[in-house]
């Protein structure tokens, strides 16, 4: 997956302003955007998703031009085919787990799902081991369960890339290690490239094939891991980082 970002965005609130000038590229399927709070990493990823319109620049994902102000291109968010895992998961509180997961498939409230779509929902719930929670509301779920539901919802339409905004920050430290492992398995199973925003160095170890370091609204450094684990056996180093998951 090729990801190219070269954008500028100025935010103003009251008398203060924040300038984001982000330029980076990645050709790995695991990219980590790392930096302290307020460094602009969420703003950059929201720009990739189309939730924020940059003032100028260009965004290309997987060879598709999503934004280019010089050409007047700005693909609407709904047409970018992206998965996005929000920090608090943003599960719709008035819908059950099944309805949340089926949400991207069902485009009207008066027609039900087609039989094939219903099957898809059941299969993805089984893959995430959440079938028994199908009729529960998000408020009745634990942190880990909510994350699985949010991932299932994000992946059901087979997005071209999955953006994760501090995906483990709402979890306790033991669960965090387990969910890292699960996320790696999910990436392999669904063959989807991940871009992970984090300020946790452990996430960098696990997901940082390409590491983009943000500081004060700019990219301070872009680096690639020198020893890429290519086979399943070579994932030992990742398992070491996540040893508590065992």
């Amino acid at each position: 997956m090729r990801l190219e970002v070269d954008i500028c965005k100025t935010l103003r609130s009251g008398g203060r302003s924040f300038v984001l000038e982000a330029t980076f590229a990645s050709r790995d399927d695991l990219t980590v955007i790392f930096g302290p709070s307020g460094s602009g990493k969420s703003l950059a990823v929201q720009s990739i998703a189309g939730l924020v319109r940059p003032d100028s620049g260009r965004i290309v994902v997987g060879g598709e031009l999503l934004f280019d102000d010089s050409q007047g291109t700005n693909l609407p968010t709904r047409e970018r085919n992206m998965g996005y895992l929000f920090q608090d998961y943003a599960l719709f509180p008035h819908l059950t787990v099944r309805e949340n997961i089926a949400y991207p498939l069902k485009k009207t409230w008066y027609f039900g799902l087609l039989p094939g779509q219903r099957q898809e929902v059941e299969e993805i719930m089984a893959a995430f081991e959440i079938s028994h929670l199908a009729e529960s509301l998000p408020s009745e779920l634990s942190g880990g369960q909510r994350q699985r539901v949010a991932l299932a919802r994000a992946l059901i339409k087979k997005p071209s890339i999955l953006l994760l905004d501090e995906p483990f920050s709402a979890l306790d430290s033991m669960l965090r290690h387990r969910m890292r492992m699960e996320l790696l398995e999910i990436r392999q199973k669904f063959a989807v490239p991940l871009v992970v925003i984090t300020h946790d160095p452990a996430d960098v170890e696990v997901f940082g094939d390409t590491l983009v370091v943000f500081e004060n609204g700019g990219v301070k450094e872009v680096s690639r891991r020198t020893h890429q684990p290519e086979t399943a056996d070579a994932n030992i180093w990742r398992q070491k980082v996540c040893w508590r998951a065992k």
Partner: protein
Amino acid sequence: MPDLSPLWLTLRVACFATLIAFGFAVAFAWITARLTFWGRDLLDAILTLPLVMPPTVLGYYLIVVWGRNGWLGGWLYEHLGIILMFTWQGAVLAATVVAFPLLFKSARAAFEGVDSEYEKAARILGDTEIQLFFRITLPLAARGLAAGTMLAFARAMGDFGATLMVAGNIQGRTQTVSMAVFDAVQVGDYQLANTLVVIMSLVCITILVMTNKLTARRQGGTRQ
């Protein structure tokens, strides 16, 4: 058996007024809650004005605008032959205007209470702005809207001043419960006054209890 026709007229007027106010209030509430533009606070103040203005002053404004020689009323009469003054439709107009701010304020608070993360999530999951309004924003704001609708209905039922100015107090045509109670007391018909007062009080208490329940459930609701 006392004449209960003012009660049916009141219910009809209040139902129509609430329905019309609901449409306008939801639209303006969404605009002021979700869009940032110059003059937003001024627009909010103008829309809230009927809440604090004396009803007779409000009625006078309505006559100026909707009267047979008014800005809009004149046009209606000339082109469509419609006269709103001293008709039950005029009472609906007055009740709509007095009820509107209660619905508008409740709806705006309800929309502002919907976490924008849900709307962002819906956009990413493929929704258009209209789809996400009906599938996410409206259902999540529903309790606040329902509470505002009930308050607006109660206010529309109880209006006196503005309705009197616009629709008058014509027995059997524009006389609502508030005016019937006033007339009954003036002529010493306390049986009618008592009956109407008891019925109106029961309706208002029921509405307030339901509104409180809705508001309480919203505060302890399922929002994450």
